[in-house]
């Protein structure tokens, strides 16, 4: 199963690069959904050969990250009436370069961290991958203007963290795991509402134009 | 020195009695230089006699300082005179530090004369008062620099000790004493409102200092003021004379004559100065007073470095 898991990780990295170059919001949402599905499956594939498989967690994860959240985002997109990220802060080709650099950087950093004892076999690859996903998420939040894209970026960031958790760690207690999931759900829900409210109030969802609150220079 | 008290007493009474002569002497000298006959030598005595009989007119603006100021000035000037060595004899009332009291008594006189001038509400008197306050503050600097010199020179804290302490040996180191005397002469001219600081003869109120301040006095009050200013002239003359002439070279009564003669001579000197120069513009008065300070400081430097005052 290890090769399969490596393949999943590879898909993760590719999805990051795809996210960097895609301007259509729908496309971005699909990428997030793909990542969500992968995250749902990976604990199972990882656990094969190790023993316990938490099917319930898998189902919740899969349905939440792979289906519900993308749906929420899609709905918000429709409501806000925005389809494309037209003028990002950093252009698409440059973004691709940056994400590539970030991936390399993640490998560099994790190379310097000796793996903890008792980590799964996959950890050597999973750690840099999850670092890369986290950084890509952060990069997306910074480099894109639309509030919705920022939510997507945040979700990618969150996925990176989950990936790390799934690939490197044993599980949290179930209740904590559920708490984390609930938090993410509510967060995206509230963010969605906010994006909707912003689009209604400002008739745009450009986060860079939300800059009325500042210290005025004299 | 057992006969010093009577000598002092005689000199003191002479000062009180003869003081009004000084303005007469000055006027006579000035008249001489101007080729006029001038007022009588005893003119001030007659004036005082006349004023004592006259009705007193008080400004209706006054709040009372005007009335009390002449009494204060007269009293404090007489008290100051008591501290001064007279006829080269120590004052019987002397005590260490009395020199401070001496100058501060004169200062208090001036303070109240300024207040009295302001009390009338007259703009001319205000003008005079402002100038008096300003110039006398600057004169204080010169006075206390002279004092510092005297303390250094005589190692005494009493006025009598300082002035009589400049004995024969002071003639050996004459330069500092002369410089200090010159400074003191300038202070005397300033304090007594003589040319070149002020012109008592002027008839234009705008240019007056002391005369402007007493515009509203009349009767006995004016008499007291005039008498006080002549006594003040005497005090300063006597101060300089005691400083310049070393004591204890003649017998008691000859010294008395010398000192009174010296004061008269200082009056003549003032007269000569008044005849030979004009009043300075007000802007030039502060530099002149500061030069008096500089003179005293130079004297001190002389004393410290050239006369071996310092280890």
């Amino acid at each position, binding site marked *: 199963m290890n090769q399969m898991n490596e393949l999943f990780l590879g898909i993760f990295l590719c999805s990051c690069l795809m996210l960097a170059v895609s301007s259509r919001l729908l496309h971005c949402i699909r990428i997030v959904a793909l990542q969500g599905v992968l995250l749902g499956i990976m604990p199972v594939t990882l656990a094969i050969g190790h023993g316990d498989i938490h099917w319930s967690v898998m189902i919740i994860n899969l349905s939440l990250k792979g289906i519900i959240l993308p749906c929420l985002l899609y709905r918000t997109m429709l409501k806000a009436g925005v389809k494309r990220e037209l003028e990002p802060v950093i252009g698409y080709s440059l973004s691709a370069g940056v994400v590539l650099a970030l991936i390399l950087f993640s490998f560099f950093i994790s190379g310097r961290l000796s793996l*903890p004892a008792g980590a799964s076999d996959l950890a050597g690859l999973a750690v840099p991958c999850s670092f890369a996903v986290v950084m890509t998420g952060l990069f997306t939040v910074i480099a894109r203007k639309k509030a919705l894209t920022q939510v997507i970026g945040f979700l990618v960031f969150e996925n990176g963290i989950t990936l790390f958790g799934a690939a490197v760690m044993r599980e949290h207690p179930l209740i*904590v795991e559920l708490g984390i999931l609930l938090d993410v759900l509510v967060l995206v829900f509230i963010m969605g509402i906010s994006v909707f409210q912003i689009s209604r109030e400002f008739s745009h969802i450009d986060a860079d134009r939300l800059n009325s*609150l500042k210290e005025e220079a004299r | 020195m057992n006969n010093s008290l009577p000598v002092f007493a005689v000199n003191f009474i002479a000062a009180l009695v003869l003081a009004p002569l000084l303005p007469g002497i000055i006027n006579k000298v000035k008249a001489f230089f101007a080729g006029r006959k001038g007022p009588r030598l005893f003119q001030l005595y007659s004036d005082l006699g006349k004023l004592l009989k006259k009705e007193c007119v008080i400004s209706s603006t006054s709040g009372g300082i005007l009335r009390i100021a002449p009494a204060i000035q007269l009293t404090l000037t007489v008290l100051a005179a008591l501290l001064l060595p007279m006829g080269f004899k120590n004052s019987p009332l002397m005590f260490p530090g009395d020199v401070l009291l001496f100058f501060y008594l004169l200062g208090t006189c001036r303070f109240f004369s300024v207040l009295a001038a302001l009390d009338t509400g007259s703009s001319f008197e205000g003008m005079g008062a402002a100038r008096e306050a300003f110039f006398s503050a600057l004169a204080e600097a010169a006075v206390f620099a002279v004092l510092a010199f005297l303390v250094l020179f005589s190692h005494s804290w009493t006025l009598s000790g300082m002035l009589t302490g400049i004995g024969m040996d002071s003639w050996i180191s004459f330069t500092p004493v002369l410089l200090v005397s010159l400074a003191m002469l300038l202070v005397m001219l300033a304090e007594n409102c003589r040319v070149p600081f002020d012109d008592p003869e002027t008839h234009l109120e705008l240019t007056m200092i002391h005369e402007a301040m007493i515009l509203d006095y009349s009767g006995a009050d004016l008499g007291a003021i005039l008498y006080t200013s002549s006594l003040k002239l005497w005090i300063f003359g006597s101060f300089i004379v005691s400083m310049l002439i070393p004591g204890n070279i003649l017998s008691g009564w000859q010294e008395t004559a010398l000192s009174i003669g010296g004061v008269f001579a200082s009056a003549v000197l003032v007269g000569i100065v008044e005849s030979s120069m004009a009043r300075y513009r007000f802007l030039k008065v502060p530099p002149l007073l500061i030069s008096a300070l500089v003179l005293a400081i130079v004297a001190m430097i002389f004393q410290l470095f050239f006369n071996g005052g310092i280890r």
Partner: protein
Amino acid sequence: MLTLSLLLLPVCGALISFFSEKPAVARWVLMITATGYTAICAVLPIHPDQLHLTETLTLAADPAGFVVLAATAILFLPVSVYNFFWMPRDLEKNAAHLGMKPSTFAAILMIFVSTMTLTTLAQDFGMLWVAVEATTLASAPLINYHRSKGSLEAMWKYLLICSIGIGLALFGTMLLSASLNFASASFGFAAVKRLTAHGFFNPAWFKAGFVLCFAGYALKMGLAPFHTWLPDAHSEAPVPVSAMLSGSLLNCALLALLRLNDIVPSDLEGFAAGYFKFFGFFSLAVAAFFIIRQKDYKRMLAYSSVEHMGLIALLIGFAAMDYAMLHIISHSLIKMSLFLLAGNILLSYGTRETALVKGLSGRLPGTAAFWLTGILFICGTPPSPLFFTELVLVKEAGIAAGSAILALLLVIFCGMSQIALKMYAPDKNIGADPAGDKLCRIPAIALAAVSALGIAVAWNMIG
């Protein structure tokens, strides 16, 4: 049982309030809930209580947690009482742009308190993270109670920056867990501490995890340079919420940092303390410059919170834990009073701009007097307990750092007092507003309590 009721009481109140849909009911429910909540908190130290969720997962109030819990409770009660009188007046003035129903507002406020309670009770890093994230979620809608472009923007920034910050903390938590080489089944504070104390950890992973957790919770706490969202959120929120955000929420994040600091093994103490010191000092410096000539008095208070979080971080960095706790409690009370007073000013003048607030001493005499008192207190004028904590801090920091801290505190004082006095300055053209001034009693009582605390501390220190 007590612990559970502490968590569930606000939730019940929230449900009642939410479904009643009436502002009056909401106000009453809020006040009653707060009273009950405070009462339970008061009983808690007498009857120590634990709630076992699973065999490894418990909820309990340990000393540090209890301090923060107490700070929350003593804020919740006055804020809810203030809210009782504030809400109708606010409805009167701002009915046109309400972002939600008052009942919903009260409900979310209670949920918010519940999540903060969970933070203080959590005994496990995972639970802690869940609770802190939940506080963000519960507080974000509150900011947008008065819907305006500004509040929406503030909410968005708050939501996004804090979520990322908390995400980092989650990442950090996982790294920490990994650093323990999976030796422990539980991730409770005590267990982790036992492990680290005996050296069963991977230093590199531990450091990375520590840094990420530190950054995440410091962001929530408002330490510079992660404070950027704070002035926006705290100034745009309605005053009861501002008071809770500044007075309680920041403490909760701080508690997380305290937990983190607690598990640091002795050979890494210098490493951890360095972060506390650096970010504490940096916050102090940043706040100092932003307070000077601040145009918005609520923002000024927000920056002052940044400053005080910096001071508390410094106190932790210099290992003066007792005084850090004292600072937490005093700062919460004073800052709450100031925000409530700012609420009075806001209601009466209708603006947050300091330049437009003139003649406060004539218009709202009581508010004005306590406003000045509060500003002096927050700047550490005795009898404020902050004076003593700052004194201890300077003493611990040594002469060079101590002088720098004092200089920055002076700069902050200059800035704050200038603004406060400009508002206070009498103006003949401004008439009195006696109705608006009545609300100053609650902050007044809080300030009196703070002075009493300060006097007690002084008594104790002088001996």
